[in-house]
């Protein structure tokens, strides 16, 4: 993948030599995460007491709330990576490409967690409220956040090559503005959504804390895992793009060794 700067093309550094350390670390992290997920599942289903008012359907809370929390954290990874891309794209194109890879990875992970939050919330709402959806401030602002990230990913896929990262980064800044609105919506507006778990009227019973905290930790670890995995995939795709374009520019060259120093502009 190239970045263009003043009609020059900036090359990425050549492919790093094969290194098995990230793979080993990834597999170890995946194994540890699965252990945490199993403990979290056991705590949520078999150990934690049923909710006094809702019964067993209240256990949806143990997946809904961690997903909601992470769905509001990862947009900031996307936001800071996008701001870094916009700042670095003319100053340090290599670092800008790295930031862009973090941005798209964080956007997809955000979409995954907000999708789960919406799906589990609707299932809970139908069982407890008797309706699938209410157009109150919390639900609507979260749906808007979800739609913004769907738009972000579609825009990146369909925009003109060369402008994809910049257009996406600008859209990411707007998407990040919605995050505090989602978070504070239940304080700023009268909503049907339950009160905050911490510091609000909906404070948890101490017997529910272990299940909740195990699940937060497990899903946070899972989120970091899929974020890093998607980032590594995007970096590989960027390098493959570069090889293909170099080969197309000079068919005699195999693309793997462009014969130029990293950072060379031509």
């Amino acid at each position, binding site marked *: 993948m190239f970045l263009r700067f003043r009609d020059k093309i900036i090359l990425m550094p050549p492919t790093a030599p094969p290194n098995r350390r990230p793979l080993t670390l990834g597999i170890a992290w995946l194994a540890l995460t699965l252990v945490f997920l199993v403990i979290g599942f056991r705590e949520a289903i078999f150990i934690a007491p049923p909710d006094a008012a809702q019964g067993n359907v209240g256990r949806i809370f143990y997946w809904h709330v961690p997903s909601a929390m992470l769905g509001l954290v990862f947009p900031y990874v996307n936001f800071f990576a996008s701001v870094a891309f916009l700042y670095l794209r003319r100053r340090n194109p290599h670092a800008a490409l790295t930031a862009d890879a973090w941005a798209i990875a964080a956007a997809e992970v955000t979409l995954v967690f907000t999708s*789960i939050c919406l799906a589990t919330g609707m299932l809970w709402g139908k069982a407890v409220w008797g309706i699938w959806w209410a157009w109150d401030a919390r639900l609507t602002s979260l749906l808007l956040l979800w739609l913004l990230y769907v738009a972000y990913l579609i825009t990146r896929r369909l925009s003109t090559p060369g402008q994809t990262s910049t257009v996406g980064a600008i859209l990411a800044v707007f998407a990040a503005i919605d995050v505090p609105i989602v978070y504070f919506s239940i304080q700023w507006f009268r909503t049907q959504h339950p009160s905050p778990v911490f510091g609000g009227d909906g404070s948890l019973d101490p017997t529910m804390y272990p299940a909740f905290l195990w699940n937060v930790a497990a899903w946070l670890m899972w989120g970091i895992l899929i974020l890093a995995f998607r980032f590594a995939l995007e970096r590989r*795709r960027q390098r*493959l793009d570069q090889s*293909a374009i170099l*080969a197309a520019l000079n*068919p005699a060259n*195999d693309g793997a060794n462009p014969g130029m120093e990293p950072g060379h502009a031509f």
Partner: protein
Amino acid sequence: MHFDGWNTIEGRHLVFAYASVILIQGGYFAFTLHNWLKLSRAEAQPAVKQKAAKPL
């Protein structure tokens, strides 16, 4: 836990909620892994035959 059973909306929706978590998270992980393996196959080809990878 005493499972309410498939016949109550509470029991059904608890199962659906956990299934949706597994489907969405597992589906995304599988999708990323699929793209990873596809890219590995593309990398194995000589560079002159490579096409620029589509945006994922």
